[in-house]
């Protein structure tokens, strides 16, 4: 079962077990270029773990993850990032002691080695790119603000901005609208709709309305396995899915 070269991401037989408990069990799925894949599933289905495995945060027990024909499971997190995979965490993860500008600057894809970082110069190109991204994520007026003082929603945006500045080919978002006010949620949906153009995206989300808006395909996970996969309409009609969500 060779990975088809036209897939951007190939996940096959991916397995991880924690002390015997298989959180992800022989999982396979494929993501095409420019696809927006939404992963849904009940709590404990292994959604976040899948993202952790792809980006190298958790080491897999078996299987393979290929991205642009590179085996990600053997790579370090930062190498995976450089290969073109960006990851947003469930809770907003920003550098609270730094300003918005500095948060974005650190994510700017240059000067990533130790000495590169030491020699890194904040030139006009960097500044204009940061301004551009800040505008995209609605933070252009807060560049000098310390990240600790941002609202929850603003932190989520900032983290998305930090990913955008890397310009990844595959963007993985873990519950990007969780904990947001209705207004922020709307703004975020708009932001994401803009962001997911020109790249592949994997999103974990519970908000079905939101999922319907953005998903190309939907994968339903249950107990570490794929329960159903297909268009939104397809999975919503799948009796197995209904069983899992409504049954018991």
């Amino acid at each position: 079962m060779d990975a088809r070269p036209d897939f951007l991401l190939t996940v096959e037989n991916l397995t991880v077990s924690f002390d015997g408990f298989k959180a992800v069990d022989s999982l396979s799925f494929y993501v095409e270029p420019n696809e927006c894949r939404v992963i849904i599933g009940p709590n404990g289905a292994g959604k976040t773990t899948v993202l952790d495995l792809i980006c190298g945060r958790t080491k897999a027990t078996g299987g393979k993850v290929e991205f642009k024909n590179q085996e990600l499971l053997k790579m370090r997190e930062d190498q995976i990032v450089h290969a073109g995979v960006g990851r947003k965490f469930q809770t907003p993860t920003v550098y609270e002691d730094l300003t918005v500008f500095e948060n974005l600057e650190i994510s700017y894809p240059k000067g990533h080695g130790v000495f590169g970082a030491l020699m890194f110069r904040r030139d006009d190109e960097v500044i204009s790119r940061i301004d551009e991204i800040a505008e995209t994520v609605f933070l252009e007026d807060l560049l000098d603000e310390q990240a600790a003082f941002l609202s929850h929603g603003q932190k989520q945006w900032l983290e998305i901005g930090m990913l955008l500045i890397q310009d990844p080919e595959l963007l993985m978002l873990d519950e990007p609208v969780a904990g947001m006010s209705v207004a922020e949620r709307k703004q975020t949906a708009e932001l994401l709709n803009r962001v997911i153009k020109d790249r592949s995206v994997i999103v974990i989300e519970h908000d079905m309305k939101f999922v319907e808006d953005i998903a190309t395909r939907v994968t339903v996970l249950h107990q570490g396995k794929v329960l159903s996969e297909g268009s939104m309409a397809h999975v919503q009609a799948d009796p197995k899915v209904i069983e899992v969500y409504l049954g018991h």
Partner: protein
Amino acid sequence: MFADYTMGELGAIFAMQGFAGLILFSVFVLMALGLAIIFGQMGVINMAHGEFMILGAYVTYLTSNLFADYLPALFSMYFFLAMILAFFVAGGLGMLVEWALIRHLYKRPLDTLLATWGLSLILQQIYRSVFGAREVGVSIPDWMMGSLPLTDMIEVPINGIFVMVLAVGISLAVYIMMFRSSWGKQVRAVTQNRVMAGAVGINTARTDRLTFGIGCGVAGVAGSAFTMIGSTGPTAGQLYIVDTFLVVVFGGAASLLGTIASAFSISQAQSVMEFFLSGSMAKVLTLLTVVGILMLRPQGLFALKLRK
């Protein structure tokens, strides 16, 4: 080096050396149990652990003097009372320290390290002012200081047996407290999820204080027992700190069984190496091995693999 000895002698030596290893193991277990509770369960780095042990030793010293002066008839039994007192005095001080110091620092483990180091200096100075700079000689009842001749060659030190029995007893007590009592459930609930534990009605502040107190109390008992084999002076506690931490960390901080397993492996390694090498080199090699293994396996011997 064994050519000159008969099989019988060698057997006896190996038996006694094995026994020496077991005594060392018991010593390590006693040292580490209190810390395993405090560091392993609460995540507090208590650098004053050795001073709590010495507090127990001083309590034993005072009790022995008291008995010698007022109850000489019961002197041979004073040690048991001394250990109980040591538990409560060290535990009481522990709870006081938790209230005054530690509770402000639960989110800053590295800062507890500094603060408790400061505490250890203060305690040392207090011991020095109260008991003098010199070591105090704790009189041990005679029946505890002899040895049991098993065969002509094999003699077993009674204080060694005592330390071993104590180690087993306290380990069991701690195990029952942590894993079989409702209090233990509360402690583990608080360590795992403080907010949730608070939400379901556990008095987290009280649980913390009690846990810290019990950890210190166990240290006090250990110190009391160590008057039989070590010295009691203001700075004696500092000698234990590195070994103690290594035992706990090597075992995998959160695991009681790990602490015991690590105490066992470190003590056996050290005891065997001490027999074949010089004492200093044995110590260096033991520490190096532990550090080396920790570098390869930072989570320690026993650690649950968890989703981060």
